[in-house]
C-alpha cells in the first residue's frame, strides 16, 4: 500500500496507541515527516528519557522523575489527608480541580480476578502501611465501576482495625466511565459531596 516500509512501520506504531485509529495514525506520521529533523530527534529523545527516568514515587507511587514526587515533597500540602486513586492520570485529573491540598496514593489498578489482579498485584500493602501513621482522613476516589467499588470496600475492610476516618467521593461521576475523563466541574462536585464509607 504505502511506498515506504519506514512510514508503514511508524503508522502501525501510532495506531497501536489507545484511541488512535489507522487514519489518525497516518496523519500523524506524515505530520512528523514534515517536521525539521532536530524536532523529531528531540521528540524521540523525550520519549526515551521519559521511559528511562520516570519511576514511582517512594511515598505515593505516582510517576515522578525524583525519588519523592513534587506533591509528596511539598510543605504546602497536608500530609494527614490522602486521596487513593487507581492511576497516575487520576492524580493529574484531581490536581486540575485545584481543590485538594492533601497527598495521594496510587494503587496502579483495582481488584479484578478476571484479569488475575489481587491485592498483592496493586499497591495495597503500601497503602495499608501508610494508614497507620497519624492520618486524619483517607479519601477513596476509585473509578465508579464494580472493580472500583469492590476495591473501595476491600480497603475499608482492611483499614477498619486502624480506626482511620475513611471517606469516598460522591457518585457525581457517571457510572461506567473512567475518572480521568470526567470533566473538572463534575470531579470538583464529587469531591465536595464525599461521604463516609
Amino acid at each position, binding site marked *: 500500500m504505502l511506498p515506504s516500509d519506514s512510514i508503514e512501520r511508524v503508522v502501525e506504531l501510532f495506531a497501536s496507541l489507545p484511541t488512535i485509529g489507522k487514519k489518525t495514525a497516518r496523519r500523524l506520521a506524515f505530520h512528523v515527516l514534515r517536521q525539521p529533523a532536530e524536532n523529531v530527534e528531540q521528540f524521540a529523545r523525550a520519549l526515551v528519557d521519559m521511559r528511562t527516568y520516570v519511576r514511582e514515587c517512594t511515598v505515593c507511587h505516582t510517576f515522578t522523575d525524583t525519588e519523592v514526587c513534587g506533591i509528596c515533597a511539598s510543605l504546602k500540602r497536608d500530609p494527614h489527608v490522602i486521596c487513593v486513586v487507581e492511576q497516575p492520570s487520576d492524580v493529574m485529573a484531581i490536581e486540575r480541580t485545584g481543590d485538594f491540598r492533601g497527598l495521594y496514593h496510587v494503587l496502579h489498578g483495582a481488584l479484578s480476578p478476571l484479569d488475575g489482579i489481587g491485592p498483592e498485584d496493586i499497591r495495597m500493602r503500601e497503602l495499608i502501611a501508610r494508614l497507620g501513621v497519624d492520618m486524619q482522613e483517607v479519601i477513596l476516589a476509585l473509578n465508579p465501576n*464494580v472493580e472500583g467499588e469492590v476495591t473501595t*470496600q476491600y480497603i475499608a475492610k482492611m483499614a477498619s482495625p486502624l480506626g482511620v476516618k475513611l471517606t469516598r467521593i460522591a457518585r457525581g461521576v457517571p457510572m461506567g466511565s473512567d475518572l480521568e475523563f470526567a470533566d473538572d466541574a463534575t470531579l470538583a462536585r464529587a469531591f465536595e459531596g464525599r461521604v463516609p464509607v
Partner: protein
Amino acid sequence: MVIRSVLLAHVRNHEHTEIVCARDVNVLSGSNGSGKTTILEAISLCAIAKSFVPVPDQALIKHGFEDCTSTVEALRDLDVPYRISVRVRNGVRKRITTAHGSSLTPRDIIGELPMVALSPDHKSVTFGGPAERRAFLDGVMAQSSKRFTELLYEHRRLLKQRNAALQAGAFMHGDGEELDVWTEQFVLVSAEVVERRNRFLADVMPIVCSAYEAVSGSAETINIVYQPDVASHGTLATDTLLSSSSVAEAYRAAARMLRPREMARESTLFGPQKDEIAFMINGGLVRETASQGQHKSLLVALKLAECELLHERCNERPVVLLDDVFSELDRDRCARVLERVLAMGMQCFVTTTEGETVLKLMKEISSTRGGNIDISMITLEGGIASYVQQSELPLHQSAEAA
C-alpha cells in the same frame, strides 16, 4: 416515537437501502431471504444495540465487508427529532452515535427508542426454559429503566468476577477477605435486581391479564408467579416482602452456607441469574398444560402489555416490529394485535410473505377507523427495496404521509 427513515449500509444482504416510513403501518413484503426481516433488525440495532433475535453481531455484516451501519431518523412524541447511528465492525466495540456523542455504550441508548418485537423466535418465552423468560423480562425492564440496565451490567460483571475469584480461590492469599468483598457486592446488586423484578411483575400483572382477555376473547385466569432463587435456600424469612434488605440478608446467609460447595465447584450457586418466572393459565403451568392457542395468546398478550408498559415508563410510544407473525398466528389474533397497536397510536413494521393479504386486512381495520391510517407497502427482493406506488395502495392516505 415515529421512525421517519431507516438507512442500512452493508447489513446482511442489503448493500445500501433507505426506507422512508409511513406514520402507522409499514408492510415489508417479500419471499424468504429477500431481506425484509433485516430491516427490522436494523431498527432493533438502533433501539437495543442488537438484533431482536439472538444472533452474534457479526452475522449482521454483509459478506465481503468489514462493517455495517444502521441509521434511524425518528421523531419523538413531543416532535423532537432523534437520530441514531450504530456501526458494527468485526472484533471492535460497536460505534453508537447520537446527538449526545459518538462513542456511546448500549447502556446510554437503551430505552431512548423504545421497541417491542414479536417474532416466531419469541415462542421460547412461553415454551422454553427460565433463561428465555428472564431474558424477556430483563429486556422489557432495561428499556423502561436506565438504573435497571446498569444493574444488569453490574450483576453480570460481578458474577463473572466472583466466579473468577472462586476459581482463583486455592491461590488466593489471606483468609478469604477478597472473596468476601466480591460476595457482598454481588449480594447487594442481586438483591436490588430481585426487589425490582418483583415490583415490576406485580405492576405488569393486571396489564397482561387484560391484554390476554382482549387477545383470546376468553375469561381464563392468567397468573405470573415470580420464583426467585433467593427463596430456595431456606434462608428467606417466610411472609417477608421481597425488599432489597430482606433479600440481601437471605443471600448472605445462603452464601455462608454454600461457601464450601462454591469453592469445590468454583462457581456461584445463588443469585437472580437462577430466578424463574412461571406463567400460569387457570392454575396450570403454561409450559406443561397450555394448548398451542393459549401459548400464542399469552405471547401476544405479553407483547401488548410490553407496548403499554414501555409507553407509560418511557413516556414515549414504542415502535412495534411484527416479524412474520401472520404465518404463526391465525387471522383473528393478527387482526386483534394490529387493532390494539393502532389504537395505542404506535407505529408498526410488519414483515410478510403475503403482502396483499396483509393489505386487505389493513383495509378492513382502516375502514372501521374512518380510513385514517397512514400505510406504506414496500416489496423486497435480494436486499433491494422498492415501493408500491402510493396510488396503487387500496387505502386512503392521510395528509401526513407526504
